[in-house]
């Protein structure tokens, strides 16, 4: 250690201690001025991270009182309506946390609200990644890590939701039991092994507890660590903009700006959750009562992020269950698991599929504006619509009541929308994107509408279009537009079957294309405008729109 000077201040001494034990200066040097681009859409992942931290804090608090056991108890606590009622220790301790531990209800509600917000944040964050193409090379693995985090978040949410052992959570477990039993061949065994015998048994709460407070959070923490490590390795993506290139990253340094903004944002998320938990009741288990396999009220729903699978179970018709040699194939139930696999699986392979279609295996660090990749955006919207239809179907009964409609008609509508919704979403979105691209071309070539009316010498009135400043102009014209690449022969001079298939799909995906404005077009348009300004009748070039 060749420190040339001995520190004298307390801070200096502490810094010296850290430096000589862990080499702190190297870390500060590496991370202290790392650049993070600043944009609201980049804060969605931060919301997820911060709500997760709050989940760990509040969840740890709850473990000090919660008893994950199903032994029988007769309630004798302060909540009068349940006095003398038989319940599990898990439910009894949940009531104790709510009514007897000061601040217990507040923390319990904060834990639940934070879980709901966490799932919102990870979902919207994933949408941002998808619609901007941020998953492209080199970030494909991190995209899959993110998908795993969504699935783990659902797992954490469901296991936690089931712990209080109230009527709603018990019915949720009952549905899981039915879902497991519908799996061919091994379903009954999986159910018996999970519940320690018949449903509900006496083991499920303590087993879910282990999953909820240890295994799932440990996995989430591990995946978050990998997720963030990749952000460091790859550096953050950035939006297209003047001065932004594929080889640089423009933004704020970690110290002090990003750290201050991020830290402040953490406290604001925390404040929001504090406010929600103080004002808005969530999961009032005392109103539902302890789990009893017999009652359930109308309008039952799971937490929002499980809703899409529950909605799926509602809209699938019963005739999809049939028997082959007496063996049941409950496609009306077990395809819910399949739907989840399809959604997550399609998300996972999408980056590779897109690269294969476009033959674009390059690194991308500049994001796409969603309109500039119409087909991708349309596919994303189709998936969102599909999800949203299933999700809304989980509230079909409530909607039917609200709109004074027949419940059956409501479900028929959802059944139709299950197929039609994504198709409509795809077509409409693609057209909107192409339209927006054409609008961008217009603005680039002919300027924006200034609202100033001019009168030409021959009497014609025109609105003066003004050119954008070069920085805004750059954003509208400096992008890559994926194009259809026809089938190409391989090294042996033959076009392979796979290549033919690729070309067929790619043609559908990328045939409709609005080309970005080139330098020549821009110069020509400027020339026309000068001509126009000097009184020529010649109409401005419309700019070529085509393949």
């Amino acid at each position: 250690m060749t420190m040339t000077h001995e520190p004298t201040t307390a801070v200096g001494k502490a810094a010296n201690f850290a430096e000589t034990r862990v080499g702190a200066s190297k870390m500060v040097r590496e991370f202290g001025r790392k650049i993070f681009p600043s944009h609201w859409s980049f804060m969605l992942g931060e919301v997820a991270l911060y709500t997760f931290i709050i989940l760990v804090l509040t969840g740890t608090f709850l473990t000090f009182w919660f008893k994950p056991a199903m032994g029988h108890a007769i309630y004798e606590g302060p909540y009068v309506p349940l006095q003398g009622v038989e319940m599990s220790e898990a439910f009894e301790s949940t009531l104790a946390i709510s009514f007897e531990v000061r601040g217990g209800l507040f923390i319990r509600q904060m834990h639940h609200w934070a879980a709901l917000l966490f799932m919102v944040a990870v979902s919207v964050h994933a949408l941002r990644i998808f619609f901007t193409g941020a998953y492209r090379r080199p970030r494909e693995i991190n995209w899959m890590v993110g998908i795993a985090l969504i699935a783990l978040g659902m797992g954490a949410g469901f296991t936690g939701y089931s712990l209080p052992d109230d009527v709603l959570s018990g019915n949720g477990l009952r549905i899981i039991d039915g879902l497991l039993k519908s799996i061919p061949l091994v379903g009954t065994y999986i159910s018996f092994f999970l519940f320690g015998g018949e449903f509900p048994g006496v083991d499920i709460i303590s087993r879910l507890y282990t999953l909820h407070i240890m295994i799932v959070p440990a996995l989430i923490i591990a995946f978050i660590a990998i997720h963030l490590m990749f952000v460091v390795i790859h550096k953050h993506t950035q939006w297209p903009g003047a001065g932004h290139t594929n080889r640089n990253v423009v933004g704020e340094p970690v110290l002090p700006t990003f750290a201050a903004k991020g830290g402040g944002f953490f406290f604001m998320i925390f404040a929001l959750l504090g406010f929600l938990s103080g004002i808005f009741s969530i999961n009032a288990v005392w109103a539902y009562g302890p789990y009893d396999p017999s009652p359930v009220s109308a309008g039952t729903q799971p937490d929002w992020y499980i809703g899409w699978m529950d909605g799926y179970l509602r809209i699938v018709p019963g005739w999809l269950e049939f028997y082959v040699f007496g063996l049941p194939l409950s496609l009306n139930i077990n395809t819910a698991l399949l739907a989840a696999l399809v959604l997550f699986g399609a998300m996972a392979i999408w980056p590779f599929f897109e690269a294969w279609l476009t033959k674009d295996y390059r690194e991308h660090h500049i994001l796409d504006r969603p309109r500039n990749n119409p087909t991708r955006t349309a596919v994303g919207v189709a998936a969102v619509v599909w999800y949203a239809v299933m999700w809304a179907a989980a509230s079909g009964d409530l909607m039917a009541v609200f709109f004074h409609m027949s419940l059956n008609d409501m479900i028929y509508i959802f059944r139709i929308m299950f197929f039609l919704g994504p198709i409509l979403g795809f077509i409409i979105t693609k057209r909107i994107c192409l339209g927006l691209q054409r609008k961008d071309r217009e603005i680039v070539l002919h300027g924006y509408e200034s609202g100033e009316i001019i009168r030409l010498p021959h009497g014609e009135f025109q609105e003066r279009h003004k050119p954008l400043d070069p920085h805004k102009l750059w954003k509208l014209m400096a992008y890559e537009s994926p194009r259809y690449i026809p089938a190409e022969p391989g090294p042996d001079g033959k076009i392979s079957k796979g290549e033919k298939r690729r070309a067929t799909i790619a043609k559908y995906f990328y045939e409709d294309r609005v080309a970005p404005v080139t330098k020549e077009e821009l110069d020509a348009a400027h020339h026309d405008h000068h001509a126009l300004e000097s009184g020529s009748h010649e109409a401005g070039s419309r700019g070529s729109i085509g393949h």
Partner: protein
Amino acid sequence: MTSKHLTAEAGSQLEQVNGHTNPGLPEHKPRITDSSPQAERITERQIAGWFILSMIGTIGFIVSYFLFDSEPGTYDNLRLQNTAFGITSAAALAGIGIGVILWARQLIPDAEVVESRHDIAGSEEDQAVAVEILNQAKEESGIARRPFLRNTLIAAVALAPLPAILVFRDLGPLPGDSLFKTLWGPGVRLCQDPGMVPEEDRYIRAEEVTIGSAFHVIPEKMHESEHPLDEKAKAAVLLMRVDPRELNTDPEKEDWGVDGIVAYSKICTHVGCPVALYEHQTHHLLCPCHQSTFDVTNHCAVIFGPAKRPLPQLPIAVDDEGYLVAQRDFPEPVGPTFWEINMRETSVE
């Protein structure tokens, strides 16, 4: 500092896109706090104000903890206390959050900084060294030269996790015939379900069940069984009386009801929710979870929704003392469909 302001290198390194030249970062516009010391002082006071609000919030939280305490054994002030916790904690946390963000936005230099990206793959030298290390490890360990050792090791490692899987065997018993049996059997009396309040069995007389009424029913002595909830999850029954003229009774099941009183499993054949909603006018049973609808007048056949199988009917009769009893167990398994559902007969005693 590894990063530089772009202005120093503008133009030279910015690649062209579609033939257009990147104009470089826009000129940084100073904020009012950058140029006016007075504005800076005002901002400073504003930010300190947020931090002071935070301190007030924190103190408020502590005060509400004691001030809105409930009497022992009650929760009379819970609502007030919880609201106070929400407002005070929001102030305490938002004060810090907003203050720090304002600090960052107004006082910390806001000029954008540029950092260049590096190749993710290592340099050729890195790769060469890595390959060399791996080759050396291969040589020194002899993993390539000693296939016998390598293959036996792979086999050993592949086998080693088997006990770790095996020890999970006792997570649960095998299903056996448990899904084919419930507490119902010949002569077992029908009792009103008291919910989760423990009380004596209340038997049901046939004349109590008037037309249009529905009873939530459990078997007698259920609470004396080893796992009452497990039993209830299979044995819960809904008992209704329908005008016999409205029932389309299957001739084989003619004697399964008593003067229009019929009993059906309450456990949905879809995924097992309790089919708790009875529509008196239409004689439909509706599952609140996924809206499967069963027609009581037609042996609870599915008329809508995701369920496939009808709700199993419990054959009932009246015993010597006038109470409703089961004739036997359900003729088929209750609840969700499972793989082995047709593999054995349900126990007929």
